[in-house]
């Protein structure tokens, strides 16, 4: 109940904050992804797996994803913020230490140092999240308050920008560019294979503070993930899009800041994944694919206990309408 009150207070604060901005142009957005916790998990796809055995064994399934609806408020070209409400489901009955969590809450995202004179070619994106989490496996409810920051490049995407931002892929696809060239250009300039034909990469990161109310614990969270796309340009000739094959590695580190010992996973978790993306639309940030992943460790936010497991899942990430 206390959590609910805090959530309502946070919600009201957000609403009053919007009133103070004069000429706002709200634009709605709907997104689906893995988890709203931070920009790293936001960019990851939602996954769905289901097993329906014919014998007496119970059906089992795995769902990892969120559905979000919200508004982007644009004050001027440089200043904007977003308010969203979301529902998140993390269910996995395929593993030994089962996970069954339903979450709902709100998120406020804004940007700092976007006027360049403060911070060179990067701006800082902040996401403040308040959510109510119902762990049906452990039969307990909890409130979660998260503050996450990450750097967003504002200039041209260098190799380093690609290392820290999921939306920048390096090297850029020379084959696709050549394919789209007018015929007169292709007739005069021959295509020479480029680095992007053999490899491309992109990464994402997040730094944050997380507070969980039941059991009461505050933790520092550092997350980093990198995806490598081998033979990206060469596979473009078959599948008509880049980044078909994806090999990724992700690391999440939770460091307890509060003194009390708690019965939650707070440590380092690793995820290795190999996947095929059948449909990719970079402009609209959409992707559908099949992914095989290996997990080592847990996640205190989504009720995942410390364990090792592997899974193959259908993955999907898309934003129906968004500003960037």
């Amino acid at each position: 109940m206390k959590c609910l009150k805090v959530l309502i207070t946070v919600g009201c604060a957000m609403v009053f904050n919007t009133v103070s901005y004069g000429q706002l142009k709200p634009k709605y957005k709907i997104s689906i992804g893995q988890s709203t916790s931070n920009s790293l998990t936001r960019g990851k796809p939602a996954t769905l797996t289901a097993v329906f055995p014919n014998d007496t064994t119970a059906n089992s399934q795995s769902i990892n994803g969120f559905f979000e609806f919200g508004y982007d408020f644009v004050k001027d070209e440089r200043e904007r913020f977003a308010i969203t409400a979301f529902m998140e489901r993390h269910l996995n009955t395929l593993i030994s230490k089962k996970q069954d969590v339903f979450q709902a809450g709100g998120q406020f995202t804004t940007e700092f140092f976007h006027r360049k004179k403060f911070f060179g070619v990067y701006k800082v994106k902040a996401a403040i999240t308040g959510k109510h989490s119902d762990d049906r496996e452990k039969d307990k409810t909890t409130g979660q308050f998260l503050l996450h920051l990450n750097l967003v490049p504002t200039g041209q995407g260098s190799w380093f920008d690609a290392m820290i931002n999921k939306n920048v892929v390096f090297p850029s696809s020379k084959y696709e560019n050549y394919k789209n060239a007018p015929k007169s250009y292709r007739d005069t300039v021959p295509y020479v294979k480029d680095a992007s034909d053999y490899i491309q990469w992109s990464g994402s990161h997040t730094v944050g503070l997380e507070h969980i109310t039941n059991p009461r614990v505050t933790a520092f969270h550092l997350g980093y993930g990198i995806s490598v796309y081998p033979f990206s340009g060469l596979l473009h000739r078959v599948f008509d899009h880049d980044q078909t094959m994806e090999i990724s590695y992700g690391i999440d580190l939770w460091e307890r800041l509060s003194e009390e010992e708690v019965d939650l996973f707070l440590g380092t978790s690793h995820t290795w994944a190999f996947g095929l993306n059948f449909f990719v639309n970079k402009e609209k940030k959409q992707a559908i694919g099949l992914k095989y992943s290996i997990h080592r460790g847990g996640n205190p936010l989504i009720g995942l206990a410390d364990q090792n497991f592997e899974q193959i899942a259908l993955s999907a990430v898309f934003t129906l309408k968004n500003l960037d």
Partner: protein
Amino acid sequence: MTSIPVNFSLTPEQAETVMEVLTGLSQTTNNQKIRNVTRFLLRNVRQDVWAKSHATALLIKLLAKKTSQVGIHENSSLRSYLRLTPDAIKFEVPKWCSSVLLKVCKNGNLGKPKGRLTTKKIIKAKPTKVKDLVKLILNEVP
């Protein structure tokens, strides 16, 4: 004089020749009607053929310099190939387009541009390719 739509299917090189001939013709004749018609044709050729090819060439040259990316053409994607972030498209691209616009107007002796390309205009147009920017520049050519 009533305006008559005139369409040419000229290459930039042919346009240069036509422009030379028309300029010579308008300067040597004393007939006011011929002078008016040649001036009108000259403006059309300049805007329709010369300005487009000149603006495209200038913009590609500028983009190649700013992004250090080779192989840029009019269908090149601003985001996935030139790697321009949404912020770069909003804040850098208007400056680059305005400088190209000024150069086109000056080199073609077209007069003062209608206005500068601002962030607002760029955002409204939602450009995705180099040719979208060229179209925006040509809109401002007098």
